[in-house]
Structure formats: structure tokens, C-alpha cells
């Protein structure tokens, strides 16, 4: 119990440090001026910096499969914003989802007396057979979506949701299929800890929370973009476990 308290204290201190850091940042030199409506120069907008994948350095054109060691090496621009430029925001989003799952779990487990499962023994033959075929394919599709999140559309949230849907269908069709509470807890907390751990490692080595501390490689290759794929894998496992937990609670309540 003591050790757990110590870890909680360390994490709280780290977050306090990050929040304090935000107050000491000085705004960049050169004030931002807004043009008239319709006359703005898009090349000076922040979105263009995201497209060129360099907020701090000079704007060079990004060439697929050729440009190397960019600031954010993911080919998918949405991913480079969601999991790199504003990944702290994403951590907050995941926490909101976690709180929702925890709340549903608490509310639905208040009455433990009458536990009957939703899936009847006579769930239809088509559903049973279909899910037997579809379950591994759905898992594969979900895994593809989040592993290739930095290259193609998709990412942690989508992949996690697809995986949760696969488990939902399996639970609906197969009455004997049961996921243990402990395994969901284990997956969920491991993913969360690794997300925060990656962030803290960036804080220690590069000086800001969740900074990309690995080489970003060539744009468009599977092993590129530094910590973005790792973050997305953590997000996918966390989201998948949380949504599966929500569905499982609803089915078993």
C-alpha cells in the first residue's frame, strides 16, 4: 500500500511540474496579426506548419517515402496532430473514457443479486456461425487499423472500438465466452502506465511531457514516426479494454 502511495505521489508531482511549466512559457517573438476575412495567407497558418511537419524549423516540402527525420514523421496528418502535437489532450480524452467506464461499472454492479446474462442459449445459428468466422477477422482488422494508424486513416480509438465490437459480438453469440475482470484491468492499466511512462521519459530526456524522443525515420514506412505508433498501440489497448468493459458490464448486469 505504501509503495502504491509513493507511485501516486510521484505521478502527481510530475503533473504538477508540467502544469507549472505551462505558466512559465513566454510567447514567441513576432506577434500574430489577423488579416481581413478571405484575405488570409494560408501559408502562414498553423495548419500549413502541420502539413509540412515542422512547427519549429523551416518549411520544406514533405515527399512521401523520401523525407527523413522530420519533426513528426507520420504520414497521416491527423495522427501527427492527435498523437504528437496534442498528445497530452489525447491522454485527457482517454481519462474521460476511463472515468465513463468506471462509472458504468460502479452503477451496474450495485445490484449483484440477480445476475443473468443477456445472451440466451438459443442465440441464432446465423449469428453463432457468423461470429465464429468473423471474430478473428475483426480482431485482425482492428489491429491493422491501430498499427497502421500513423500511415493510413485510423488509429488507436478506431482500432480499439473495432476490437471492442468484436468482443461484444462474441459475448452476444457465445454464452460460455467470458472475459475475466482481472485481464481487462491488467490490459487497461498496463496501457495507461505505458502511455504516461512514454510521456515521462520524454519529459526526462527532452524536457517536455510526451515529446517524441525516438528517431522519426522516413515518412510512409511502417517503422517510422518515433513514439507515435507506440502511443497509438497503448491508446488502442486502453480504449479497447475500456469499451469492452462497458459492454461486458451491460451484458452481465
Amino acid at each position, binding site marked *: 500500500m505504501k509503495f502504491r502511495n509513493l507511485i501516486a505521489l510521484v505521478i502527481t508531482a510530475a503533473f504538477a511540474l508540467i502544469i507549472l511549466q505551462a505558466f512559465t512559457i513566454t510567447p514567441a517573438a513576432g506577434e500574430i496579426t489577423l488579416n481581413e476575412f478571405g484575405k488570409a495567407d494560408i501559408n502562414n497558418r498553423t495548419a500549413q506548419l502541420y502539413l509540412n511537419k515542422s512547427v519549429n524549423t523551416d518549411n520544406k516540402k514533405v515527399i512521401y517515402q523520401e523525407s527523413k527525420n522530420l519533426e513528426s514523421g507520420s504520414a497521416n496528418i491527423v495522427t501527427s496532430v492527435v498523437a504528437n502535437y496534442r498528445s497530452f489532450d489525447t491522454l485527457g480524452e482517454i481519462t474521460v473514457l476511463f472515468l465513463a467506464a468506471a462509472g458504468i461499472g460502479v452503477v451496474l454492479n450495485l445490484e449483484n443479486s440477480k445476475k443473468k446474462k443477456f445472451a440466451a442459449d438459443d442465440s441464432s445459428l446465423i449469428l453463432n456461425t457468423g461470429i465464429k468466422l468473423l471474430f478473428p477477422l475483426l480482431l485482425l482488422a482492428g489491429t491493422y487499423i491501430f498499427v497502421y494508424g500513423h500511415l493510413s486513416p485510423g488509429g488507436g480509438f478506431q482500432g480499439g*472500438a*473495432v476490437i471492442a465490437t468484436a468482443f461484444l459480438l462474441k459475448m452476444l453469440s457465445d454464452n460460455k465466452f467470458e472475459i475475466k475482470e482481472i485481464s481487462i484491468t491488467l490490459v487497461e492499466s498496463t496501457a495507461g502506465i505505458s502511455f504516461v511512462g512514454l510521456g515521462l521519459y520524454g519529459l526526462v530526456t527532452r524536457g517536455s511531457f510526451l515529446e517524441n524522443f525516438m528517431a522519426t525515420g522516413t515518412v510512409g514506412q511502417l517503422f517510422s514516426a518515433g513514439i507515435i505508433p507506440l502511443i497509438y498501440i497503448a491508446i488502442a489497448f486502453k480504449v479497447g479494454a475500456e469499451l469492452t468493459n462497458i*459492454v461486458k458490464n451491460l451484458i452481465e448486469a
Partner: protein
Amino acid sequence: MPLISSFLILIMLAAAAAALAFDDLLSSIIAAGLVSLTAAVLFYFLKAPDVAMTEAAIGAGLTTAIFVLALFKTERGKSE
């Protein structure tokens, strides 16, 4: 392109109106799922495939399932 968009938006509006109008709550939930599904297709045509995937997986898939489960748990099949 505007033709497809307006067609999809019409479907969305019709499904949303149907979700409000149905007496049977299960039909309402299905209609609400149809709204999400059409929104997903619309997002895809608006060149936002990431949002489209999220909408299809969570909006059309999981939310509908969660609503249906909640409906059967509360054992209230009909509204007033």
C-alpha cells in the same frame, strides 16, 4: 458530389425524424444508428476518413449496441 451529399443529408434528416417519431424504442435506436452511419459516409465524402472511421465504429456500432442492451435491461419496450 453535391448531389450525393444532399441525398445523404436527406436520408439523415429522414432517419432522425423517424427516430423521434417511432413509438417502438428499438426502431428508434435503429434509426439513430442509421443517422450515425450516414454521417460516417458523409464524413468520408468530406475527406475526413479518420472521423468517418470513428463515427462508423463508435457511433453506428457500439452506441447502438449499448442502447439496445440498455433497452432490454430496463425491460421497457414501448414509450408512453
